[in-house]
């Protein structure tokens, strides 16, 4: 299954905050590099005001000062923090007759504020910078970044990003915006080029939300590549053991391990529910004791070693 993922141009990693989405995005990028791909790992800036705000993704791959300029992290792996204003600048340079005019325009406080405040224009800037990076080529004509792994913002904003192209096309079907939006959609809606991966946890609420998210993404016709069930606890019971212990606990009352036991049951139910309702293959990741960069490495190794 992973080999099929590496063949695409863009992998969009989404899911609620706190499910390990960012760590997974970093591990996915590492695994792709280990399989011989050149990868651009991208994320979306939090807000235009604080370009200084901490970036967990950048520190997971060892980037000290995350910025809208692509930096090479290690052989085959590059990182970028997509920025609205950078995308808008690129866009203006492309559509305005004179390059100087784009620079002058962006120095205008009024236009900058307009671009920051109007929500659609910010997302458009981000989308445009990503398109520009995907389009970049090497001297031999091949893509500079054959695979982009994008760590999308939390669910709500990811959906807004997904909804944007249609909304934009409805008000501005023609002109330069319409053109680049259409180009963006050709990439985003083509299942051989793009795939979304929805990361979730083996708990009832996250699974419900992931199934809702899958439906919403389908409505925007963005192809779903896989579900990712993260932090699946190991199953310590021998056959018959679970039922036997239940009988003992029934007679002798609850003991320590109760919470872990309930969690294990919820996890198993969640896995079954997700596997049978998600219209895409399910990737499961074990719960591991590591944190931060060590966890990224372990997960990447797990991904590359996983039977396809």
């Amino acid at each position, binding site marked *: 299954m992973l080999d099929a993922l590496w063949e695409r141009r863009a992998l969009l990693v989404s899911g609620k905050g706190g499910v390990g989405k960012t760590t997974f995005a970093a591990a996915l990028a590492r695994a792709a590099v280990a399989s011989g791909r050149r990868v651009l790992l991208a994320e979306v800036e939090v*807000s235009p005001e604080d370009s200084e705000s*901490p970036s967990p993704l950048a520190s997971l791959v060892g980037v000290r000062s995350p910025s809208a300029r692509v930096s090479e992290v290690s052989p085959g792996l590059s990182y970028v923090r997509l920025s609205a204003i950078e995308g808008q600048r690129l866009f203006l340079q492309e559509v305005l007759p004179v390059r100087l005019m784009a620079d002058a325009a962006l120095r205008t406080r009024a236009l900058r504020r307009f671009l920051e405040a109007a929500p*659609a224009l910010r997302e458009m800037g981000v989308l445009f910078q990503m398109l520009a990076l995907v389009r970049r080529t090497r001297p031999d004509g091949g893509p500079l970044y054959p695979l982009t792994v994008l760590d999308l913002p939390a669910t709500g904003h990811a959906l807004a990003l997904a909804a944007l192209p249609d*909304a934009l096309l*409805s008000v501005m079907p023609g002109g330069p915006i319409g053109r680049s939006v259409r180009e963006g959609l050709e990439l985003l809606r083509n299942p051989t080029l793009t795939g979304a991966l929805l990361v979730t946890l083996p708990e009832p609420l996250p699974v419900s939300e992931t199934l809702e998210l899958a439906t919403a993404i389908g409505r925007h016709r963005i192809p779903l590549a896989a579900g990712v069930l993260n932090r699946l606890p190991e199953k310590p019971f021998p056959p018959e053991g679970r039922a036997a212990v239940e009988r003992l606990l029934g007679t002798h009352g609850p003991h320590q*391990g109760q*919470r872990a036991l*309930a969690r294990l049951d919820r996890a198993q139910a969640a896995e079954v529910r997700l596997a049978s309702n998600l219209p895409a293959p399910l990737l499961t990741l074990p719960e591991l004791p590591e944190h931060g960069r060590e966890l990224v490495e372990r997960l990447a190794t797990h991904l590359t070693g996983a039977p396809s």
Partner: protein
Amino acid sequence: MSLQSLLREKRVLVLCGAGGVGKTTTAAALGVAAARAGRKVLVLTIDPARRLAEAMGLTEGGTEPTPIPPERLYAGTEVGPGRLDVWMLEPRIVFERMVRRLSPTPEAARDILDNRLYRFLSDLVAGMQEYAAAEALDGFLEEGHYELVVLDTPPSRHALDFLEAPGRLARFLDDRIVSLFLPEEKGRGGRLWRKTSQLLGSVLGSIFGESFTQEMRAFMGAFSGLFSGIRERAERLRGRLSAEDAAFLLVTSPESASLQEVGYFRDMLHERRLPFAGYVLNRSWAREDGLAHPEALLRHAEDEAQRGGVEALIHLARHEQVRADAHRGLLSLLAENLPTGAVAVAAPESGSELEDFGGLVRLGEALATS
């Protein structure tokens, strides 16, 4: 100060936190606890998970807050004087009301609401949810019908998006800036102004096309009558949120509690002079449950299956212990260096319990009494 006294004394409780930490559940549980303690409470939420909405008896797209029936609120005890309303914010409805309230005439309001650009903007969720939440909160505080409003801020990657978005809009609505985008007869003179306005005109024209730019300028012209009203309200809300009777809580979970982000949150509130009230560490195993160790079960095990099962349970108990210790360590880190009056409390993991209202009642009690 405890969470309980916050629930008794404050007028506004703003819950911030990244997506997925259980913020909405916490808001609902705190609202339930405050109402059961006798106050008139409104919980304002955006986009709750369907099961949680069902647990609260919420209907989607309601135009008004939904009252929780008192028998339900007080299930298991005598009905008291407290009341709880819950409203799932509809940005579209909030904006429509704002436009109607701030427009000089009903016709002016209709001109804006019928404009296709207006519909386009209010259809886009990102950013607009934050404005809508701020606007709705201000409206309910002004109206004064509730003794406590608990605001569950919109889901975001960043705990602080809610604080940023209204400021961004207010900065844009600065008259000098906005006038540059207005149709020319509405703008003002000055050579520099004219030059800038022309530059913007040609930039916008090349990007959006001439006709769309005209349309946009006309829309801004129609909308500009509302700007001073919007700015005033943003100022007023800022005043209310920095007052003594407001409190900001950061909700986080053991998995996503990055101490870096937690500290960042506190500093940002401090910078903006907003009252920081503490942390809720959600879904934690920090509390002792006082149960016996499963080794005690070994002597009752009668066959291989039971022995194997107990061994596995012992293994699970060891894991549980490690987790619980980690959560306790995290809680005491959060409790370090708290300003006077701020709290750091652990909310128990409720598992699948929260699918009914009783689960919210229990969680609310656990939070209030810790």
